[in-house]
């Protein structure tokens, strides 16, 4: 079923469903499906995704990471093609890849891991009203509560507080809450058919590696229209 995702939901998709999947310390442990898809189409050509402390001016920004590597703007997906992941210094050394400035620790007391910074999809050219008008039956998803990563299977799980019903191109006023977004990430990304022309980033949350190692970061993007399973 077709959904329109608000920027905060788009951001959690970028972060949870995709960003965690390209943290390359997971490549070292053979825990990420994305490792096998570098250079391949894994999303619609409308999709370009960034991560970097230098990619935006937000809560995930810094001049250098916790290992002293300068901040960068890494293009992870370029017009649908998976280009590269992100890494800490030890991971880059093991994989023989370029440093990306993503080595971060929760505090001086904790180990550094590969962590995201500011993660977002680039804007497109569409208008929100046109995206809603194009849907016969679907939902506008807003107010994301949480998400969880699944780099091994590239699964998506996000909890969303508001799903506004769309019928015949209009909002009906009916709201479902809460709802769970699930599915396979490449299917979702390849189904993106419209991307709005404005990007918003949100930096109020924390990101964990599993259930610990919390760091500040931001995520966001434009409104996107995609096929997603809801429960």
């Amino acid at each position, binding site marked *: 079923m077709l959904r329109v995702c608000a920027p905060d939901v788009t951001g959690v998709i970028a972060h949870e469903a995709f960003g965690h999947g390209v943290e390359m310390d997971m490549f070292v442990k053979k*825990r990420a499906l994305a490792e096998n898809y570098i250079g391949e189409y894994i999303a619609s050509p409308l999709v370009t995704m960034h991560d970097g402390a230098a990619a935006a001016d937000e809560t995930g920004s810094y001049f250098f990471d916790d290992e002293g590597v300068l901040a960068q703007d890494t293009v992870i997906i370029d017009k649908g093609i998976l280009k590269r992941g992100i890494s800490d210094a030890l991971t880059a050394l093991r994989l023989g890849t370029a440093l990306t400035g993503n080595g971060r620790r929760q505090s001086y007391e904790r180990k550094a891991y590969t962590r995201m910074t500011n993660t977002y999809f680039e804007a497109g050219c569409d208008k929100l009203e046109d995206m809603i008008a194009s849907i016969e039956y679907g939902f506008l998803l807003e107010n994301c509560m949480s998400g969880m990563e699944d780099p091994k299977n590239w699964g998506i799980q996000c909890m969303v507080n508001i799903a506004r019903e769309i019928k015949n191109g209009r909002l009906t006023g009916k709201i479902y809450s809460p709802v769970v977004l699930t599915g396979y990430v490449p299917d979702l990304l390849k189904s993106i058919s419209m991307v709005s022309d404005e990007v918003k980033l949100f930096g109020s949350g924390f990101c964990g590696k599993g259930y610990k190692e919390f760091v500040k970061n931001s995520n966001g993007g434009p409104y996107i229209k995609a096929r997603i399973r809801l429960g």
Partner: protein
Amino acid sequence: MDKILNALRKNGISVYLINEDVIESTELFFIKRKLDMRRKKNVHHYSVTVYNDFEKDGRKMRGSSTIGLYNGMTDDEISEAIREAYYAASFVSNPYYELPSGRKEEPVVLYNPGEFGTLAEIAGKMAEALFAEDKLNDVFINSAELFVEKTTSHILNSSGIDVSYQKIEIKGEFITQCIEPRDVEIYMDFCYDKPDTEALKEKVKRTLEITKARALAEAAPPTGEYRVILSGKNVREIFKYYLRRSSADMIYPKYSNYELGMNVQGDNVIGDLLNIMLKAREPYSYEGIPMTDRPLLENGVLKTIHGNSRFAYYLGVAPTGVYNSIYIPEGSRTFNEMQTGEYLHVVSFSDFQMDELSGHFSGEIRLAFYSDGKTVIPVTGGSINGSLPECHKNMILSKEMQKEKDYEGPFAVLLPKVSVAGK
């Protein structure tokens, strides 16, 4: 500590709380069975809360502000930080409340190196236990992290409280992987107050079995309404609802409507009536309140509102300290008796969440066992979405018990009429 007390006196601050924690740890990081990295730490934290009493619109107020201080700060730096915190507290218009009072007590020692060994020795024993069941070729531990942490806490306030205790915690996580016929993994964490090698071995063994089952799971369960069985750590998440709803910091702002004597499961309960004990994991709360085990629910009736001094004062109840650990006695049915007819037993979620405001729970299924009443098959994918207030009159608890972090109680819980989004 003396520098902090001097700075408080110098700034004329007479109401305060100081929390001093010394944390030592030994940490091991594994990729497969190989030790990839080891770390040790020995850190010293000070947290100082200053209280500023003032009047606003004719009402007595008590504002507070908490700061972190570090070894290596000079006397002037400490004094300035405290002074700024006191000024910040003057903007916090909380109605007045009393702080707990007490006296100097003997330290409580919960960790005895003579009995358990040094932190490094404990780490070695637990690492051995972690890999003891990792003996198969087709399913194995992909990676693991182990933390053995000793904390010495000292709590001191301006009302005479001067208490301390020492404890250890062994915690960590591991990922199990099975490659054939599908490459899948399961995440599991653990946390113990003592080096419980047998509990860890058992947890690893069960997780390896679950991972193998996940590799065989092909499809999501059919969409519909189910009798859902939850087991393992997800049961703890369900009962956290009652723990949070009975907390003073939820009741005072009216996020929770719980009252003492209230029948929280409602009338005409057909399933198991809940009996929950609050368990004290530490001898003192962060405010220095002595903590003891207390009844939370007796046959579904609320017996205790728990919380810190501020919200307890506002509600007119005695401050108990904030509880996170619970004990629930065995339920009425065996786990086998629960597994009759059509049901969905969800063993593993990507993430299972319980909303403490609404009582809604949900999660994406990584592995479940679906029974149509005749055959049982492993399934994966899809999600569940339910409401505990709508379920808990008919909820059934298992007779079999388990121990998880902050939870000792039934291994499984059966919830009727839970929505499942699948194929």
